[in-house]
């Protein structure tokens, strides 16, 4: 990774590499901007690299960039290419085959919420340390829900691939299927509990590489779709609206859920839409920049068993 970044910067192929470096807290990495070959030596990559850096492509659109992308990130980049938001020749994609990202909340559960003062990445997982404890955790135990059924660990699009290709996992929508099987009242109660947590900081929207509207519907005042206050109903309105706007676009990278400071189960809605797009229309987002968009196209034979009055 460092070698690849260093070479790109030395050869002037790019003038900025965006990757990850260790953050200031244990278990955290932060986006890192390397402009010189020396800075490239601070780059790291491991299962704690939870941000989707593709978001930065939209902001740094004037420079020739080197961008570190995981499998899912590459798919979101494909969606951006398809939507003509970025130019392919502006970015040198440094692909990293990814075996899954760690969900810090699950780690915290495993250590019963004790304060973690140190963490170390091993081959199999991570070792976390705190006052009076040390725990060896396997990556697979604490994977994000999106990573558990990830078929695209190896980026679908890259210029340089760092590391060995990884094996595709078996698709897994077990969580969504189980939830669908619950009675509507229980589903609603679950969402009511989740939505009550939301403080409407919009972190989920702000980290999402595909949320790039210049005016989001939540900020619009004419019409004002929903109230600014973080009331459950308005939160629900926001999350349904956002999820729907990502229908056929969301690539299940899970960055929104990881960015959420209060742990709202955002992937329930997103993954439901991904599953529906697949089941109803055989559509998977972010595999091919030439792919038509799901919701602005149609097939005369689309299912319509729901039509009232037949």
């Amino acid at each position, binding site marked *: 990774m460092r070698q690849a970044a260093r070479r790109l910067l030395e050869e002037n192929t790019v003038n900025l590499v965006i990757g990850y470096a260790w953050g200031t807290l244990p278990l955290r990495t932060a986006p890192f901007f390397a402009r010189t070959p020396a800075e490239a030596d601070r780059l790291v990559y491991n299962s704690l690299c939870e941000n989707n850096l593709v978001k930065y492509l939209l902001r740094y659109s004037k420079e020739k960039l080197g961008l570190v992308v995981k499998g899912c990130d590459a798919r979101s980049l494909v969606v951006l290419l398809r939507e003509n938001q970025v130019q392919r020749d502006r970015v040198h994609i440094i692909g990293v085959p990814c075996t899954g990202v760690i969900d810090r909340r699950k780690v915290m559960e495993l250590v019963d919420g004790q304060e973690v003062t140190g963490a170390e990445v091993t081959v199999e997982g991570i070792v976390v340390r705190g006052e009076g404890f040390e725990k060896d955790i396997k990556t697979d135990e604490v994977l994000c829900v999106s990573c558990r059924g990830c078929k695209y660990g190896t980026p679908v699009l890259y210029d340089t691939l760092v590391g060995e290709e990884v094996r595709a996992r078996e698709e897994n929508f077990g969580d969504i299927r189980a939830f669908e099987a619950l009675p*509507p009242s229980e589903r609603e109660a679950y969402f009511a509990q989740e939505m009550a947590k939301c403080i409407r900081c919009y972190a989920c929207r702000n980290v999402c590489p595909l949320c790039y509207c210049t005016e989001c519907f939540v900020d619009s005042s004419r019409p004002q779709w929903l109230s600014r206050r973080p009331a*459950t109903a308005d939160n629900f309105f926001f999350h*349904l609206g956002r999820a729907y706007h990502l229908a056929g676009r969301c690539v299940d990278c899970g960055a929104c859920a990881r960015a959420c400071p209060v742990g709202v189960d955002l992937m329930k809605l997103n993954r*439901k839409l991904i599953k*529906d797009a697949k089941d109803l229309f055989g559509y998977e987002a972010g595999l091919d920049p030439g792919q038509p968009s799901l919701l602005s*196209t149609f097939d005369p034979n689309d299912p319509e068993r*729901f039509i*009232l*009055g037949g």
Partner: protein
Amino acid sequence: MAEDREPRIVGFLCNWCSYAAADLAGMSRFHYPPHLCAIRVPCTGRMNPLFVMSALRRGADAVLIAGCHPGDCHYVSGNLTARRRFSVFRSLLEFAGVEEGRLNLTWISAAEGKRFASLSTQLTQRAKELGPYKGMLRKRIGV
């Protein structure tokens, strides 16, 4: 809010067919319940899911979207994209716990005044059975 109030239904009717069908139903003196509040849209392709959520948020118990039959769209394919969007959105709302039947899509051509009358009757019946919508979109602050 009284439990036994009459249902409120918001109908988004396509200018070129369903809205004309509603006119025809009126002109033909067909009887149908008065619960449907018609909103004219240029095409079902104009429908934004936010309209539907806003309707539910602001007091509707059921929503009807009615457009031209597939193949008859004034804008060639507005109703077909609407159908696809609707199927995704409907499924999402149901997943999130909004009862099936609150959100409806149908095709009514300008000549089908009778169909408009019978579908509004059917829908009003359904909305009465479901009762007032008290789901999460209707929650007040602090609840």
